[in-house]
């Protein structure tokens, strides 16, 4: 289900000139019996190395309704070193992530998709060095089967893709990072735990 949404989003973004990096394109990559299964930290590393304009962590749930958008619960930092930089890598990007959250939320609202926006501590979002959001797809209304509805997934993917096109021109590195660390904005990485 989540992969279906990811594939739809990838197609829409590729058609708009994005280079999309997915951390997996099948369920086998994360299964425990797979040799060297991808961990959450591995996937955060893939996303960080791509220097994307946006990182989206796609999830699905049968509870609630509409789309849930979550940004990191970390407080934005002003440059002081952290005790564990890997677990707080998102801190300088929190303001950017919240701007992205607002833009995606606006696009989803325009698409008449119920929306919940908040902050959450969900691994590995705190380790991502890019504007990062957790996108959770919930049923459309009270019908749990609507999660598998291709037209519903398409509506959500189109709203996200539309917002990301606008976001691509606005993404900026956070103030405290050197200019070279995030200047090339080639692609959003669809990281899906």
């Amino acid at each position, binding site marked *: 289900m989540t992969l279906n949404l990811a594939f739809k989003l990838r197609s829409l973004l590729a058609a708009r000139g994005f280079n999309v990096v997915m951390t997996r394109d099948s369920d086998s990559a994360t299964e425990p019996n797979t040799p060297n299964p991808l961990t959450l930290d591995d996937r955060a590393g893939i996303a960080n190395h791509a220097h994307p304009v946006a990182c989206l962590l796609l*999830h699905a749930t049968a509870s609630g309704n509409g789309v849930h958008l979550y940004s990191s619960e970390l407080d934005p930092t002003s440059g002081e070193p952290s*005790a564990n930089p890997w677990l707080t890598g998102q801190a300088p990007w929190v303001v950017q992530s919240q701007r992205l959250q607002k833009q995606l939320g606006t696009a989803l609202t325009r698409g008449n998709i119920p929306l919940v926006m908040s902050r959450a501590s*969900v691994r590995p979002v705190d380790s991502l060095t890019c504007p990062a959001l957790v996108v959770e797809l919930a049923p459309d209304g009270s019908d749990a089967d609507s999660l598998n509805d291709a037209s519903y997934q398409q509506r959500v993917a189109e709203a996200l893709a539309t917002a990301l096109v606008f976001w691509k021109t606005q993404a900026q590195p956070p103030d405290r990072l050197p200019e070279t660390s995030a200047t090339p904005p080639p692609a959003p990485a669809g990281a899906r735990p």
Partner: protein
Amino acid sequence: MISRHQRILFWVLIGCILAMAGFLFWERERARDRVSSLADATPIDAPYTNTESITLDLANDSDGSITATTRQIALPDEATARARALLEHLIAEYALPGSPHPLQSGAAVDDVFLLPLPVNGHAIDTSTNPATTGATPTIPVTDPNAIKPQSPGGELAVINLRSNFVNAHPSGVEVETLTLQSIIGTLHANLPQIEQIRFLVDGQPRETLAGHADLLRTYPSRDTTVQATVPDATP
């Protein structure tokens, strides 16, 4: 004329019937003993009967909100027992039919431990300026990663959840986050001395509640009452 082997079969069947009847009677006695032992209402703790007004931060899955709700509940005076009773009342609300954030009924919290911050403790130094609080750490904190209090007297709450509650918790970013925020907000509203909160499951650290919400980090105690944020549709 009844043949010999039919007579043998008849008596074997009679024997089986009697054996089964005896077995069923024995099982009935065992079940009765088990139920009566569970129904033993001998009190372990001293009774507390004075009800008081407390605030529960209740979650709603449909709009992702947390709403402060007042209840009249009798709670113990001792802080750790009070925190545990608060959380049990909170989870019991979610187990009611028609709950907007349905969770499995049953005991969810094994223990709550309240530790003074920093974890190496505070002592009152009466030789200091009386204008100040006089609280100084008993052991100098040299560890830069040590959990520090925002004010003297601040406490770290360690909530030891039961694995049967965690294993039965619905999976999803929203539903798991709302459970944690509801617990954090309820403790913040009723036990203001708690500044930070950590979670264990059966006494052990666990990565996530049900696959999503992080259980390894230390959460700041804060007001979690939020309404669903809906952005303006105009650019």
